């Protein structure tokens, strides 16, 4: 970070670094512990130190060969990807409307679309369950895709509005004169220019769907509808004696795809979440 207001004194910098290091440890330590445990055996879990003495990949082998793993992985991928695509589609249109048009109750609506995120997810489960049961949609992908999309759209919309507003109007006017329809302007001009925002909104919604647990627990019953987080939960439940190394290997396996995406798009995400703050 460069500061334009002046050069921080040594003391300030020391304090800032200390705070950052502490925060990093705070955030990363549980994951590191999980990583460490995943390379141990149940017997050596507590007897060995932080660095495993005889690291084993055995747990990962067991995770990958466990029954239904690829089915659950497939479910997770399918739900995350479809709900993210749908989220982006809906959010782009919503955000464009909010960004480009002045209409009555605009601000109220803007606040209202946040409601699904303000309510605790658990409080939504019972009324949603009732609706879904009446629609005879329990235990289907559809219901999960729809609920994931519904909960991700508000966040994605809010992120995209800022980006769309930053796209100069003249670009769209030029495109309109060039012969582009509103549809072509949105997807051909506004969206590509807002790519960092799209990546940010996309990854956040992908992560939400990927990690989601309460809905999949409540709305599905059959075994082959399970997602990875569900299976993680089920694993703990089913075994009399908890196999911590296995569970940790499973956790790490679940984290890796999202972590990979984050690292891949880190720059866009950072610029996506901070742009507009300083103009």
């Amino acid at each position: 970070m460069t500061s334009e207001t002046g050069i921080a004194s040594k003391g300030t910098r020391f304090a800032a670094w200390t705070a950052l290091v502490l925060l990093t440890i705070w955030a990363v330590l549980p994951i590191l512990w999980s990583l460490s445990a995943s390379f141990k055996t149940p017997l050596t879990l507590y007897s060995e130190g932080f660095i495993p003495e005889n690291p084993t990949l055995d747990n990962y082998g067991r995770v990958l060969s466990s029954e239904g793993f690829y089915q659950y992985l497939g479910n997770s991928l399918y739900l995350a990807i479809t709900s993210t695509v749908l989220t982006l589609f809906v959010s782009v249109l919503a955000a464009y409307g909010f960004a480009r048009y002045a209409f009555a109750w605009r601000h109220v609506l803007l606040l209202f679309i946040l409601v699904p995120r303000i309510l605790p997810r658990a409080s939504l489960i019972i009324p949603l369950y009732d609706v879904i049961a009446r629609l005879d949609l329990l235990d289907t992908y559809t219901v999960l895709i729809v609920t994931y999309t519904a909960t991700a759209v508000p966040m994605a919309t809010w992120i995209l509005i800022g980006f769309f507003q930053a796209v100069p109007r003249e670009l769209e006017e030029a495109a309109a004169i060039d012969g582009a329809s509103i549809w072509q302007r949105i997807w051909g001009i506004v969206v590509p220019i807002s790519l960092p925002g799209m990546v940010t909104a996309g990854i956040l919604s992908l992560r939400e769907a990927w990690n989601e647990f309460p809905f999949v627990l409540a709305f599905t019953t059959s075994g082959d509808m399970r997602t990875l987080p569900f299976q993680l939960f089920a694993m703990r439940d089913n075994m009399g004696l908890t196999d911590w190394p296995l569970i940790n290997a499973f956790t790490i396996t679940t984290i890796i795809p999202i972590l990979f995406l984050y690292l891949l798009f880190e720059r866009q995400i950072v610029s996506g979440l901070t742009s507009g703050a300083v103009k």
Partner: protein
Amino acid sequence: MASVTLSALNKTYGMVEVIQNLDLEIADGEFVVLVGPSGCGKSTLLRMIAGLEAITGGEARIGDRVVNTVAAKNRDIAMVFQNYALYPHKTVRQNIGFSLKMRKFPKAEIERRVAEAAELLALTPLLDRTPRALSGGQRQRVAMGRAIVRDPSVFLFDEPLSNLDAKLRVEMRAQIKALHRRLGATSIYVTHDQVEAMTMGDKIVVMRGGEIQQAGRPIDVYDAPRNVFVAGFIGSPSMNLMPATTDDTGLTLFGVTFPWEQRRQAETLPEDVVCGVRPENFQLCAPEDGIDGVIDAIEPMGGETVATVAVGEAKLTVLYRDRRPVAVGERVGLRPDLATLHVFDARTELRR
């Protein structure tokens, strides 16, 4: 090619009238410059012709077609924006070819036309760059390329040069004029810079408060401004406008009476007038031979020198080309060239 005809055109935003009952005839192939201070409605007028702004009342025609409700893309116009409005994620080639692609031209035809436009604007080596990697002048040329590639019947320019530095601006001015001569398309050009207006327009339209103050050939507007506003707006440095009185003996300016043969007889001339003298039409003389003042500032520009002379509260501008040993603080006299005097009615501000 097409003419543009505006009749009784109106634009209101709520209660605010931005364009009032405006009539304007632009001939086929003419280069017309709309000029005026910011907020005079010139850009709004242009955007109404472009179809980016709805027309509240009246009629706009391009050729013999009324375009009031025709979408921008169907008006057969092209527009160059002040900030160029280039698509940042597209290459120069894609930027120029975008309108053809939208109109479903065959690939080969797009290729050919883009190459032709690029050639004309010396953009060929830059075709695969994105706008980010271009200089201001180059971006400007890409914006021009995007406009000419479609061969529209009317070109609209919205202050296209105001983001360029002075030298480039002069260069581009000449380029745009040359391009107009070559393509011969009707062009409407908006600017607040009266030098741009004077040098580029076949016709200039001076606007204020949503109304046309005067329209005509640049030289005619310069030589015979229709009212005090136009007189003060057109010309740089601007015309000296001074309160004066007339009677049988002549014209009295700051207490000095000049015998004024040409107009003394005109019975209709009101007693109180506003007298306009261009800086180059003032002559420095001995204090007792003219309006008595003190030199306030001197701006030598090499070829010419602009001096500001304080006369009581008023500051008058004099422009002269010869070398004169005058200094700030010196007492001088000013004599207007009576043949080029502009006289306006003090009440109506109209030319007499």
